[in-house]
């Protein structure tokens, strides 16, 4: 077996993961009245409103850790651009006809940067929404811009999140185990990340 994720990497990933899901559920409760029951189930509207921003800060902290652990592995290279052009084959599970990839494929890298940039935008706009009452009336465009940015960035990360969870659990078998237990088989590494441990 090969070690793919250290204990620290796994802890940081799951802190981010659980906190993100909480943010997603409470955020969606405010986003549409049809899902307001999510806030009720999670302790009530007032509690959800109170905790969502604090959970956001934890999420951003975890994202900063991930940046420090993984940013070097996430650099987009020419090989990634080539891989991206052939992404249709990856989608159709014709992996044998793709350029070999390192620790992360281009899709994973783009997801990382989507969450990183999305997290930054969510933080800035989220803080503005947290303290709407303190934004002077003459700068009210900030109140308006904050909700639009927060919702748009939230939706973008949700799109990435759906694909991330689907790929990691249903499609790339063994991926989920690797982020839970840390290890992958040699066959797994050779199939999905041929250039990683060479």
């Amino acid at each position, binding site marked *: 077996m090969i070690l793919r994720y250290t204990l620290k990497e796994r802890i940081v990933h799951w802190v981010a993961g659980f906190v993100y899901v909480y943010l997603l559920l409470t955020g969606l409760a405010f986003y549409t009245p049809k899902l307001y029951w999510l806030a009720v189930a999670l302790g009530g509207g007032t509690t959800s409103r109170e905790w969502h921003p604090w959970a956001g800060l934890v999420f951003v902290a975890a994202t900063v850790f991930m940046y420090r652990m993984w940013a070097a592995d996430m650099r987009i290279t020419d090989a990634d651009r080539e891989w991206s052009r052939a992404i249709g084959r990856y989608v159709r599970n014709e992996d044998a006809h793709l350029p070999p990839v390192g620790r992360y494929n281009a899709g994973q890298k783009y997801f990382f940067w989507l969450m990183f940039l999305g997290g930054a935008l969510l933080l800035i706009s989220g803080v503005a929404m947290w303290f709407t009452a303190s934004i002077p009336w003459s700068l009210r465009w900030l109140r308006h811009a904050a909700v639009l940015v927060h919702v748009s960035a939230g939706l973008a990360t949700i799109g990435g999140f759906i694909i991330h969870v689907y790929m990691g659990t249903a499609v790339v*078998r063994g991926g989920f185990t690797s982020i839970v237990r840390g290890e992958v088989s040699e066959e797994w590494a050779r199939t999905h990340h041929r250039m990683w441990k060479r």
Partner: protein
Amino acid sequence: MAGNTLELKRISASAAPPPGIRETPVLAKYIDTTTCIGCKACEVACQQWNDLPPETTVQIGTYQTMPDMTANFWNLIRFSEYEDEGGFHWFMRKDQCMHCGDPGCLKACPAPGAIVQYVNGIVDFQQDQCIGCGYCMAGCPFNIPKLSSKTKTVYKCTLCVDRVAVGLEPACIKACPTGCLQFGTKAQLLEIAAKRVGQLREGGFKEAGIYDPPGVGGTSVVTVLAHADRPEIYGLPANPSIPLAVSFWKAPLKWLGNIAMIGGIVGTAIHYLRYGAKHAEGHTEGPAERPPESRAS
């Protein structure tokens, strides 16, 4: 907020209630800025009736009680000085929630039932449903809702819904000594206002008029201005409407997001049914192990 039996017209974050069959006139308050003497009796009456704690006054260089309304102070006479070709003007305008026909606060609110509009036009916050998110403060075009740091909920003028529901006039109107404040159906008050505007025009105020902005569906506050061509000099926005960002957020952006999220879930499900999982070389997990290319498509 007041528990009462008035019929509802709109409820925040909820499907619209069924239209009543009873015809209910829209009620309003009439504010004649040209006969207001700035005595602040309405401010006191509001504090007293609503049992609000005393707020410290803040000197801003005019007679105005404080710079802006607060969660504990819902009715403020705004004093402003203004100079133009016509000479020097001293304006006094009673400021409070405008009780919009199409309230931006209610549109923005995510909490079901935290903001309601009664069929008589009164827009009221229900603090027991409010989650304190402050969205209404982004939705209101008049800068009215105020967040209480103590209760973490939002407050504003209720148009004395608790008095109106039992047939009394609002406290501010009851207290006004000059008759510049009146209460009644909006139709009646618009007639009175038109008469007053006529008088003002005869008296030389050629631009006198009624402030009842259509951009927010009209308001349940009918304001007479001597210079209705320039409402800004009274601190009123010229053409208020629900902020475009709020309308965009609550409709197209929400549909787009819903389609994208449902599309994402359905898309991944279809992908799985069509292509299934990727398997590592040399794994033996049973029949699913056939190379993907050889699968029936």
